């Protein structure tokens, strides 16, 4: 049909390359050229599938170097319309390192920043159990939402011919890296001004949301317009929910009537007078 013809014209170079026969190694993978031949074969698309309960299965998701991680994080902090995250940065090599450690860092960043902001507001109550709650929230977002989205895309791909298809690991990877915008935001939320905190969170949500939308739009736009809009709204909405819940649960409203900060410091009943 005509739609398919125009789709092929508009698609990126990378998509055409992805649909070529496996074994074709394109230019950007020259960076792997130092490795042996069968590694190149593995990297170009035909992975030998080790069963998922073995160590080797997971090792292929850690097949990255420092500069890759750095580029991917920068790419998720600075979304660019032409650079689809999966096609440009992941290049068929999704990793689990980034998503996992970004989520862990975010958990502790949220917890520690929340503690500091509470401390500066005078209410010093560390509540270590908040770490567990933060971890559950953030890891659920980073794993179950991609699972749902990937399942949905798979289901729709059966009905609609779609040239763009993402593997589960790629979806998890995008979601993981999109959370990296929240880490500096959460640290900056230590500032005791309520309006500033909301501005910062909105900015972070803008960055992470735009990464997600720009990545998944090529996969969704083939679909029925209502379905596509509904999915985009769902992606955006879940991101908003995460941002708002983090902000409200961990950063209480400053200005509650409390004693001045110095008395919030550690007091012992044996302090010398």
């Amino acid at each position, binding site marked *: 049909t005509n739609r398919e013809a125009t789709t092929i014209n508009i698609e990126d170079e990378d998509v055409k390359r992805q649909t070529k026969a496996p074994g074709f190694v394109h230019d950007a993978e020259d960076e792997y050229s130092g490795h042996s031949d069968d590694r190149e074969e593995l990297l170009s698309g035909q992975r030998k599938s080790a069963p998922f309960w073995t160590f080797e299965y997971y090792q292929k998701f850690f097949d990255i170097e420092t500069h890759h991680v750095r580029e991917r994080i920068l790419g998720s902090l600075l979304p660019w319309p032409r650079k689809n995250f999966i096609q440009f940065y992941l290049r068929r090599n999704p990793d689990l390192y980034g998503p996992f450690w970004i989520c862990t860092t975010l958990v*502790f960043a949220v917890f520690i920043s929340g503690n500091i902001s509470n401390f500066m507001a005078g209410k010093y109550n560390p509540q270590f159990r908040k770490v567990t709650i933060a971890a559950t929230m953030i890891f659920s977002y980073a794993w179950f939402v991609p699972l749902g989205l990937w399942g949905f895309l798979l289901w729709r791909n059966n009905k609609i011919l779609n040239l763009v298809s993402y593997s589960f690991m790629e979806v998890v990877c995008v979601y993981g890296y999109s959370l990296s915008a929240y880490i500096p935001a959460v640290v900056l939320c230590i500032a005791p001004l309520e309006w500033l905190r909301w501005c910062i969170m909105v900015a972070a949500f803008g960055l992470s949301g735009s990464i997600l939308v720009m990545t998944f739009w090529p996969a969704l736009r083939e679909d029925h317009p209502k379905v596509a809009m509904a999915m985009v709204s769902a992606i955006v909405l879940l991101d908003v929910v995460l941002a708002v819940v983090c902000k409200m649960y961990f950063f209480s409203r400053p200005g509650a009537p409390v004693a001045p900060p110095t008395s919030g410091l550690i*007091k012992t009943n044996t302090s010398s007078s």
Partner: protein
Amino acid sequence: MAAEEEASRPFAGLSDVSISEDIPVEGDISVPVGPSRTDEEFSTLDEPVKETILRDLRAVGNKFIHVLYPRRSSALLRDWDLWGPLLLCVTLALLLQDGTADSDHEGGPQFAEVFVIVWFGSIIITLNSKLLGGTLSFFQSLCVLGYCILPLTVAMVVCRIVLFGASGTIGFVVRLVVVTASFGWSTFASTAFLSDSQPANRRALVVYPVFLFYFVIGWMVLTFSPSTERQP
């Protein structure tokens, strides 16, 4: 034809080799058996209990010294043990208790939370470095990470002492300096052992989780606040 026959029987030409009489052949075929001392080394059932315990304690103490003065040595790696990490973890977790059971001052981490963070964190970091292609074994890595908590445990002791004495801002600044220094020390010591086993292009990927791990432990040490006794 003859050559082919020769070739088909590779050792045929050796059948008429003989050793001449004037070249003495001598030697000792017996396998050198170690002295019975090796038996004594492995059988430690007969030694007094005090000696057994002291030997392990000495090994642990030796590794503590290696952590405090990180040098390129393989003592931590070759003879790994998990007694030291266990001792340090229990000490740290006990020191982080503030002894209150009442629920409205739910302050710092519970004993189990400290334990889980230390051990689970070490296991995850070890898995991470192995997945990235590290050459250290699982337990060696656990051993290194556990032993390098020593500076932070010392900092915890110092913080507790400081909290008895000074209070207010000065005490806080002192504690901040002590905890920061010991966090840096821990991270430096453990990366000195761990980073050698990684290829250069992934070193930062392995070091960062270690940094995060000790940062979180340092945070727990720094924010420790003993409960105030309720005034009547």
